[in-house]
Every structure is written in C-alpha cells, then in structure tokens.
C-alpha cells in the first residue's frame, strides 16, 4: 500500500447525511471482477443531476470529500472505496463513519478522517464561499486545514500507523503464522468443517 502522510487538494462540500454505499456506487457496478476502473461508477445516480456537486467546476477536480454524518453506511462493498479513489479522492471528512467503510478505507489508503460536525460546518462554509479552496489533511499531526479553519481529526492509532508506513496487512499477520498454527491446534473438535461436504 502507498504511504499516506499529508495531502492537499480541492475540497468538495457534500451537505448530506447518511450517504450509504449504494449511493457511492450502485450495485449494478459490482458485477465487475477487477479492482480498478470504478471512477465512472462513483455517485453515478446523483451525477445524472447537472446540479450535483461533482458536476460543477472546480469541484469535479476535488480530492477531499467533506460529507455529513454517517458516511458509508449500509453494504460492505469495498467498491465504494475503490470508486472514491479511482475518481481521485484521497481523503473523506465526516463526523461519523460506518465501521465497515472506515475499515475498508484504511486497507486501501483512503484517509477517513473523523472531524467534529461543528468543524465540518465551518469547512463547508469556506468551500461554498470560495469554491476551489484547498484542504490539507495532515496525518502526522491529525489536523485538517481549510482557509482559516484548522481542526483536529480522529483516526485510530493502528490505522494511522499503517497508513503512514504504507504497510500490507496480510504481510503483517503472516509474521505471526506460528501463533495461528498454535491456536488451530487448540480448537475444539465439535466445531464444524465445511469439508467433506454434508447435505440434508
């Protein structure tokens, strides 16, 4: 995974709560078997509306999404993170993220920065009054800067460390393979196996 330290890019104010992953990427795009090429799928239903924020310059070149509370609810589809990244987003700011979306973001190097709703409101105002204003997200100091607004954000330390170092999760876990093997030896025999297959 690519390291994430700091990022500066145009902020996109998305004044909406409960942006679920079906909105971020509708299910019809989930039939693909690739991990890339989802930029056209991002918010595809909403992008049919000419007034949608990503259909307006300079927001269409944005890379920091500033959304309302409960971002990424619903389906576990990691495609939502892939679509945001493929479009060009590097960070999403919200006062509350759905757990699975937050986890998926951390795996893919998309920064899900939890910012207090009061600060989100201030950032929205800056971005709406001066479209094209850049937002800087600094992972080392856990601060976000937009115009005059400087706000702290929350992210769990483990995800932060992995992002800063650009570490691959599976590689990290496999360093403890002996522990996994030792655990497996202690599992009770009544726990089920899927093989050999038994059916009714």
């Amino acid at each position, binding site marked *: 995974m690519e390291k994430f330290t700091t990022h500066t890019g145009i902020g996109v104010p998305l*004044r*909406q*709560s409960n942006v679920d992953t*079906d909105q971020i990427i509708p*299910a019809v795009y989930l039939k693909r*078997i690739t991990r890339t090429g989802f930029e056209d799928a991002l918010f595809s239903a909403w992008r049919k509306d000419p007034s949608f924020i990503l259909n307006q310059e300079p927001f269409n070149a944005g890379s920091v999404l500033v959304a309302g509370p409960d971002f990424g609810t*619903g389906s576990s589809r990691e495609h939502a993170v892939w679509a945001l990244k493929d479009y060009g987003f590097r960070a999403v700011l919200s006062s*509350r993220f759905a757990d699975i979306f937050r986890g998926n973001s951390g795996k893919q190097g998309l920064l899900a920065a939890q910012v207090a709703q009061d600060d989100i409101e201030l950032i929205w105002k800056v971005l709406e009054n001066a479209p094209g204003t850049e937002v800087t997200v600094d992972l080392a100091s856990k601060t976000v800067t937009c115009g005059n607004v400087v706000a702290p954000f929350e992210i769990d330390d483990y995800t932060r460390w992995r992002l800063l170092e650009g570490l691959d999760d599976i590689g*990290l876990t496999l360093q403890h393979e002996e522990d996994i093997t030792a655990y497996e030896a202690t599992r009770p025999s009544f726990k089920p196996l899927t093989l050999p297959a038994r059916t009714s």
Partner: protein
Amino acid sequence: MAKTLAEKVWDAHVVRKGDGEGANAQPDLLYIDLHLVHEVTSPQAFEGLRLAGRKLRRPDLTIATEDHNTPTLDIDKPIADLTSRTQIQTLRNNCEEFGVRLHSLGDAEQGIVHVVGPQLGLTQPGMTVVCGDSHTSTHGAFGALAMGIGTSEVEHVMATQTLSLKPFKTMAINVEGTLRPGVTAKDIILAVIAKIGTGGGQGYVLEYRGSAIRALSMDARMTICNMSIEAGARAGMVAPDETTYAFMSGRPHAPQGAEWDAAVEYWNTLRTDDDAVFDAQVDLDANTLEPFVTWGTNPGQGVSLSAKVPSPEDFGDENAKAAAERALQYMGLAAGTPMKDIRVDTVFLGSCTNSRIEDLRAAADIVRGREKDPKVRMLVVPGSARVRLEAEAEGLDKVFKDFGAEWRFAGCSMCLGMNPDQLEPGERCASTSNRNFEGRQGKGGRTHLVSPVVAAATAVRGTLSSPSDLQPAPESAALTTDAA
C-alpha cells in the same frame, strides 16, 4: 471478571493480543471459524491471493454460494447478463482452483449465503463468522460473533484465517413483554433502528435480550440480527438456548453423539454474566409495539403503520430535517399522509432478512383463500433452494400461485438492483428486505420496509396494510402470529 456474551466469544478467538494499552492498543488477531463467500466481493480477493502467490489457508472452513447476481427465473439457462455470467463463472473457476466448496445455481443447497450457513448447521453458537457482506450479522442469532467485511479483509481471511480487530463496545437491547398478534421480529428491529438511528450502533456489538427475544424462533432471531448493521452496529447477537439447540439438532454439519454433548456444554456457558456491564443499554416495550414501516430512504426513517408520514419540521436536528425533506421528495410522499393510504405497485417477499420457511408460512397464512389486489405484482423468493423445496412440500407454492403471486427460485432477487428483479423508476414497493436506500431495488424505485405479514396484507389491499385491516378470509384462514 464478569463478561458479556460478545466478550466471551471474542476472548475465545484471540490468536494474539495486540500490543499496547488504551488509545495506543494495537488490534487483537482473531481466529475465524467460518468464512462464507459469494460471487460479488470475492473475485478481487482471489486475484490478490494469486498475484501474491498465496494459498487459501483453510478451504475446510470456507464455503461459497451464488446469490446476488443470480436470476430467479429460467435458472437452467445461461445467465443472460454477460457481466453477471462472467462474475459467476469467475467464482466457479476460483473455487475450483482454491479447493472451496461451492453450491451453484441449481444445487439444492444454493441460496442466499446467510440462509445457507444456518440451514446446513455450519453456523453454531460461539463461533466467529465472516463474509464479504454486511448482513453477515444474521448469524449472530445463534450466539456467534458474525461480521460483514470488505474485500481486503476477505483476502486477509483467505490467506490467514484471521482478522485484526479492535475490541468493540457492547450494547444491550432489552425487549420485554409479549408481541401482539400481527407484530413480528421485523417490527422489533425496525423500531430499534428508528429509536437509535442508523449510526446509533456504530462501534457496538448489540446483544438482543429480554422475554420477547427469548420467545422468538430462530428464523425470527435471524431477522433481528440481520438488520443490526442497519443501526450501524458491527454485529448483533442472541444468547443460545433450547430454541437454538432444537433448530440445530440433526442439521448436516451439527455435531453428533458425544460431540453434540460437548458442544452443548460449551454453548451453555455462552451467556452474559449476571454482573457483566454493557457500555450502553436500550429498552423497548414489546407489549405496545405495532407493525412498523419505513417512509424514507434510510432504515431509521420508520413509523408505526397506523401513523402518518412525518414532516421535516418534526425533526429538531438540521441534518435530520434536510434528510427528511430529501427523502420525502425521493419517495414522492406528502407529510401528513396516513401510511395506510399509500398505494404500492409491487410486494417483494424475500431477502436474507425475511425469506426463511417461517416467513413464507406467515405470509401464506395471510393470503390463503384471499385475492390479490389485481394492480399489485407480488414476488415470492425463497431464501434458498432448500427453503423452496420445503415450502413446496407444504403446498405453500400453490397458496401463493393461487393468490396470484409469482413463485421464484432462490437468490437475493429484488433486495438489491443487481439481477433482473428490479423496480422501475417511480415504482413503489412494500418489501421485506433490509434497505430502503435510494435506488436500492432499482434506479428510481421507492421502497417501504415491512414484515412478511404486512407485505402479504398489503398485497391483498393494495395499500400498506396490517393483517388486522383484512376482512376474514372466506375459508377462515387463521392469522398466525408466531413467526417471522
């Protein structure tokens, strides 16, 4: 130290404690007992294994089925949609290559992944269960810790049979009392979500407790745990009891003989200790609960069926007000309209929330001997091929067909717009599924989440209805209240 059910299951699966304390704590490495796989969230994970030259560590703890993309008609013909067909074929190739057991379309054990696991007896108390699908929370009904995960985590589980997880907070959902006739598990969970909101469970594992939960069947408990994710929770659980054991006994992969006795002895320890403390608690009175229905575009936007469509002005919070305004516009509803005046075009009985045999029985009991509103189309989609066979053995297919409903093959169907079963723009649906998001059931489609008996009553009257709104059926079809 006293522990909750969730903490007991967690502690029993720690392969390696994370280093550090408090805010600096690293996640624990947890062992995964069962990995369920389907065609949508797995191709990129299998590809990741291939690119890294890794093996799938435990094919014998992994099982796959085809559900999201599959058609529910003409299942003996090649899938018409080429991208869907490719995705299904990719799953078949991957399962072959990595030695994973797969139940394909046409197989008696094929069906929605969350119906298949329990019906095979693979879902058992005290297990950790994961799947690249948010409704994995369903399996918590057995006292398992069951979580939806993303594709990167799917790959991680394939490679290591573990997941790195930060401990969750625990929330007790106490539901005391007795449900009234026509009120079901679906109404309990819709009411819980309306109460705590779509983010209210965020960071928590919910444990459903209380006399109303204990009285529920396993199918009903699965309905409740299934929608835990709709409250933002990472998982939902019910402690195992005699109801659980009775459901499991004799299932293909349930333990047998002395193994069964050893298992039950362990399962009996899977209760929250009396002096254990939850991080949060929510109480719901089952006695006063009414059938519940959603009016908006997230599962928290629900009211009693006897209520009216709310006004954005009813919400104090600015974000909630804006969300309500937007939802009413999308749903084509005016504030103040009685919910029961809302006419629907389609009724969908199915999905991992409500497609099990008891759901079908409960709906069949309502429609038996009655006539469907001719303007309404009704789809009945069993959760698995096995459920379909069971229903047909009981003659339920005939009940639904006589009523005028379409009797389909098993799959996710109209729960999500990924297969041929979709709503048209503007089409309104009473659906037993789990999400009323914009476009979820098809672009521009409008969804009202309901229980199976409300779905059935709605198909009779054409407007959102509860069973108590119906005239007695000519052949005295008794209303049953014990299911769904």
